[in-house]
């Protein structure tokens, strides 16, 4: 299986009373809470951490896109990915991803992803999320009633821009461009592997299957909450005649490794409670812009609420609605499976079980979360790579991962000199 190291880049110094004094971590979070000189260190620490994860042997390092968000400091993940392309050599670079409807023209995504693919020698995984309501409809003002059709059209434009050899005209419903002809062209042919982070919409599952894309469920609520959803995904794959190749799917999981379970509990409580307490404090008025949820998904949600006695224990239908019932204390955070903690053996055993029960071949691990500092992050990352990773490498060895980057031969790739700042005396 693939073990991928994911960074959200949370602002790590939200005040203790953040929840009491602020309506939301997202959309209208106040600028006075942002100290650019502190963020200078955060960004550099975070990028160090991603590079360190690559050194430690993780299969991929992952970044993603958020806007006006106190727990996600990457409005442009491509900026980070381009830096990582220069500072790493063999690790896949997973941009998870670019919210296609937000780019005008979406050709920009085809260009920037091609740039990262070329700079990195063909190591890019291209993620195409629709994007959360907070990012797309509120922070970026995209019309929720057009978001999905704009997304699908932008996807078609990007794919054509990657595939077609000659300049072409794109005559879309929302995008018209007379001369589409991107330079550079991606190394991976016909294009980098495409992964789709999504919620529990059957239409998205069917589309991923039809297009042969990886479907990723990037939830902050761990394997227990994810089980029913991934069961639904695999049932749908089976219904439409697709195999159970676990590499069709990706899943996000928070993990904290220590010498023992208690040690891990003590080490990671503060960071976990910071994340679930402050970072997921989102004003419910940002939850459901009208039209964001398709009517088919609304109908399924209403039926399921009826079946589940008015939604007790149900996961909400959008990122925003899911925040309402989140556990914020460490005991419940662990109990509900949001964060897997333990000794290396215990973590390996749990992740083996998670991978098997969810049938997920691409496990995206959050080993930095909340206000976790660089030192603890390195400890978690190193201990995982030394003592957990070896115990998981054999999982799903019987399956082929057809959705993984195909880089240039290492021998053909450019040599990237190590960074060495000039001495002041020179």
């Amino acid at each position, binding site marked *: 299986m693939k073990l991928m190291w994911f960074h959200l880049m949370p602002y790590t110094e939200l005040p203790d009373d953040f929840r009491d004094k602020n309506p939301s971590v997202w959309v209208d979070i106040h600028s006075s809470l942002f100290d650019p000189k502190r963020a200078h260190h955060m960004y550099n620490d975070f990028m160090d951490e991603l590079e360190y994860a690559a050194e430690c042997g993780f299969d991929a390092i992952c970044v993603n896109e958020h806007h006006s968000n106190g727990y996600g400091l990457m409005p442009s993940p491509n900026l980070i990915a381009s830096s990582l392309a220069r500072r790493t050599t063999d690790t896949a670079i997973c941009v998870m991803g670019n919210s296609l409807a937000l780019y005008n023209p979406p050709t920009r995504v085809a260009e920037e992803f091609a740039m990262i693919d070329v700079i990195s020698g063909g190591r890019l995984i291209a993620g195409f999320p629709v994007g959360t309501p907070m990012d797309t409809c509120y922070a970026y003002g995209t019309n*929720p*009633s057009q978001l999905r059709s704009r997304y699908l059209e932008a996807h078609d434009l990007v794919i054509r821009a990657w595939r077609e050899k000659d300049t072409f005209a794109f005559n879309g419903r929302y995008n018209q461009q007379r001369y589409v002809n991107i330079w550079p062209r991606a190394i991976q042919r016909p294009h980098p592997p495409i992964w789709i982070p999504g919620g529990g919409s059957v239409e998205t599952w069917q589309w991923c299957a039809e297009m042969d894309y990886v479907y990723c469920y990037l939830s902050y609520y761990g394997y227990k909450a994810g089980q029913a959803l991934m069961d639904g995904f695999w049932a749908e794959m089976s219904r439409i005649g697709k195999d159970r190749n676990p590499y069709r799917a990706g899943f996000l999981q928070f993990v904290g490794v220590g010498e023992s379970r208690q040690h891990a509990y003590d080490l990671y409580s503060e960071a976990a409670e910071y994340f679930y307490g402050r970072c997921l404090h989102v004003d419910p008025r940002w939850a459901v812009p009208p039209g964001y949820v398709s009517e088919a998904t609304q109908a399924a949600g209403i039926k399921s609420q009826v079946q589940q006695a008015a939604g007790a224990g149900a996961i909400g239908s959008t990122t925003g609605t899911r925040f309402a019932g989140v556990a914020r204390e460490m005991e419940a955070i662990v109990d509900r499976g949001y964060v897997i903690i333990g000794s290396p053996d215990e973590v390996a055993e749990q992740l083996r079980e998670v991978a098997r029960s969810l049938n997920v071949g691409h496990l995206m691990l959050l080993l930095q979360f909340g206000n976790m500092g660089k030192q603890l992050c390195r400890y978690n990352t190193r201990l995982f790579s030394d003592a957990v990773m070896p115990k998981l490498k054999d999982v799903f060895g019987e399956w082929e991962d057809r959705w993984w980057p195909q880089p240039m031969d290492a021998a053909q790739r450019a040599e990237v000199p190590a960074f060495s700042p000039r001495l002041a005396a020179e």
Partner: protein
Amino acid sequence: MNEPATTTIQDAGLEETIIDINGFATRVWRKGVGPKLGFLAGLGGLPRWMPFLDRLAEQRTVIVPSLPGFPGGDRGHSVLDTHLDWLLAVRETLDKAGLAGADLAGSSVGASLAAEMAAVWPAQVRKLALIAPFGLFDEKNPPTDPWAQRADAVPGLMCANPEIWKAMKAIPDGANSIEWPIEQNRASEAAARIFWPLGNTRLEKRLKLIRAPTLLLWGNEDRIMPISYADRICKALAGPHDLRVIGCAGHLAELDQPGAVAEEILDWTA
């Protein structure tokens, strides 16, 4: 589509007709006698008939076509991508509902479209009555964002008396418990489709084209659209106009004060 089928659906003389707008079955309600008076509903649309329309129907033939995507308007909004698409769809709706050249009233988002009709096609509207229309945006005094609200805050934003909004939106006995809430969400989506994100369609630039005598009505407790917009609109209107403020009324003043609002409109269009 075949010739429209007319069905009397209530014993009080309310008729429902279905017309075809861009391939979507669109409901037209009609009641009363006398000269025609059209009404285009506001945020939330008309999931059910309301007392305000009965008051109008006492003196006029009230014709109430649904707007695309609003209750009775199917998914008509889903094919409208531009402002011009919307205006053409509403123009076609008015024509097929028999409202060409008639008096026209509208509320909130419907008032915005009624104003557009009078501005772009002056012969389309005889006299105009607008209840707190959408379409303008003042940075110093922005309207409340109706699409970024906690669900429990919405009734109090729409009406001075939130119970009236709740009653308007309550699921009737025998209605489909899945379809009904989806239809109400769709009304919100349809409004968002044309007015997202600021409510600013730049209607202000076209107000000078309106020649029809225009009555502006505003609830004194409108918590969506500040009453300062009334002055702005009055300044931009080239034709005869008047402003009346309705007491004890919110954004959808016709819901809070059906009698007072109907009386003003009947007077203006008499």
